[in-house]
């Protein structure tokens, strides 16, 4: 297939030797397929930082990486207006491989074969970006937990919000906001999905509020017959008060005590 210009490739793997292997293989097939390695990253976060500043056509991403794995990386990339194509690499991850086969997501088994790499690259730009719901599901099962970061697009820029720093999520009409000690972020997420994904970390206080169990500092009964809430929850680190519904009052107090 003749190309106008070489594809810009980003290599993402936590093992330096695995990255240099891919670099060698790309060099070997340079005659059949022109590509240029524009950067390397050790995990998903570093990869997103790179992509924010530099145009990239294809990301070769390892599945299991510290900080942010390849599946979560692909999920965040999916939110870009024109996401780079993603090819996953993995040494051995039974669950992810089975799920990829089911959903026709392209992946390479390590050690990677030259011919397979070539085939994957030749069809990569034509393949649609993997569906975000599918990625979320695979990621959750493969890593045994939710994402490590949430993405927030602000004036065309991608911001990553570490889930560990979020004190609470609040739903307002159209948006969900995430509050950290420093500031608020607008997210393109549904509260029910967040509740499901991070069930071990967050709990529902109210129809429109999820709170990090570790952030709960105390409770106040609402004065008189406040229609909005049965009581209020106080938080560590921020002065905000969150409404607690009558139904969640006892479970919330139990979670704060435990």
């Amino acid at each position: 297939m003749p190309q106008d210009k070489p594809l810009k490739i980003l290599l993402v793997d936590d093992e330096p030797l695995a990255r240099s292997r891919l670099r060698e293989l790309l060099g070997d097939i340079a005659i059949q397929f022109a590509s240029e390695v524009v950067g390397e990253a050790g995990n998903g976060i570093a990869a997103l930082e790179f992509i924010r500043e530099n145009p990239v056509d294809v990301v070769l991403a390892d599945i299991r990486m510290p900080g942010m794995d390849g599946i979560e990386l692909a999920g965040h990339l999916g939110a870009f207006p024109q996401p780079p194509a993603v090819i996953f690499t993995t040494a051995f991850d039974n669950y992810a491989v089975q799920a990829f086969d089911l959903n026709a997501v392209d992946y390479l088994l390590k050690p990677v074969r030259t011919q397979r790499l070539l085939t994957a690259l030749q069809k990569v730009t034509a393949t649609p970006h993997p569906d975000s719901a599918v990625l979320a599901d695979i990621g959750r099962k493969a890593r045994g937990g939710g994402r490590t970061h949430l993405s927030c697009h602000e004036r065309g820029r991608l911001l990553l919000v570490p889930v560990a720093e979020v004190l609470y999520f609040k739903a307002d009409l159209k948006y969900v906001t995430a509050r950290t000690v420093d500031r608020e972020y607008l997210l393109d997420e549904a509260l029910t999905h967040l509740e499901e994904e991070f069930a071990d970390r967050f709990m529902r206080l109210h129809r429109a509020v999820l709170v990090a169990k570790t952030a709960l500092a105390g409770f106040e009964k609402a004065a008189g017959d406040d229609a909005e809430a049965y009581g209020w929850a106080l938080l560590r680190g921020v002065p905000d008060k969150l409404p607690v519904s009558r139904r969640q009052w006892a479970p919330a107090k139990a979670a704060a005590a435990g």
Partner: protein
Amino acid sequence: MTSIRHFPATHPLPDWRNFGVMLRVLLGVNVLALAVAFLLSPGPAEWLARYVETAALVEPLLLLALGLLAGLRNPLRALPLRLGQACVIALVAGLAYGQHLFWQSLGFGDGANPLRPPVIAAAASIVLLGYFELRARAFSPAQTEARLAALNARIRPHFLFNSLNAVLSLIRARPQQAEAALESLSDLFRAAMRDPAELISLADEIALGKQYLELEKLRLGERLAVDWQIGAVFMGLPIPPLMLQPLLENAVYHGIEPASEGGIVRIVIEQRGEELIIAIANPTVAAGQHASGNQIAVANIRERLALYYDLEARLEIEAGEDNYEVRIILPCRKTSR
């Protein structure tokens, strides 16, 4: 080469010097005494009093008999099985009769049938010997070996393929390093495929662990730091193969790989009294991640320890806030076995 054929539970006449055997005998006799006390007492209130009364007669006899049997283990085992068992029963019954006469001479006797104590003692011995014979059959060498083979530690495919990938990337740039890595890899797999019934020396197991960690270092680079603290231990001590490596693999897989900045795997091997302690510690990474899968290797090693050492070895886990430590405690008597 020492092997599983020396396993204490495989002889129908038990090894009375083995801690597990002693514990089982002590427990078994006391449970029998409790049962007898229950049968003979009219109500629950008298049950305990009756047991204490029985125990006063049983315990000295029990300890004396165990001591004598421990001393006579080898000559008893040299006899044909049935004769050996008969000797044990006769010995215990004789002791019981002797003790009865001794109490009588002190004036504590209740004037009961003088044959009662030896008959009860003989009956208890028959029950326990029957138990040990059944147990020995359950742990026959063939079956034990089959179970060991099934439990044989497996090296994670994740590690194999990642290592092969790392070696492939070294071949062009650093061929000598690639050769050394492949040699280590083949040593590791040879160890994993060895007859699991054969014991290996502590020194060999440590060497294997070091080779394994060298391979991991190749992949992980500076993220993996290793701290070996080996005290004054008997390096020739025979131990079951592949006890250390799976635990090191767990430490790397759960403690180092998921951490961007890496961490230290600390291995402490020391001798305390007659016990050898092997402790492996790694930092804990964000809770909930990659927690599963860890239990398989640990449960596997626990079961193998039980097969090799019965109750004399144990595995302890200490899961702290930011540190995870597994300790294997093995009996370490230079003269044993």
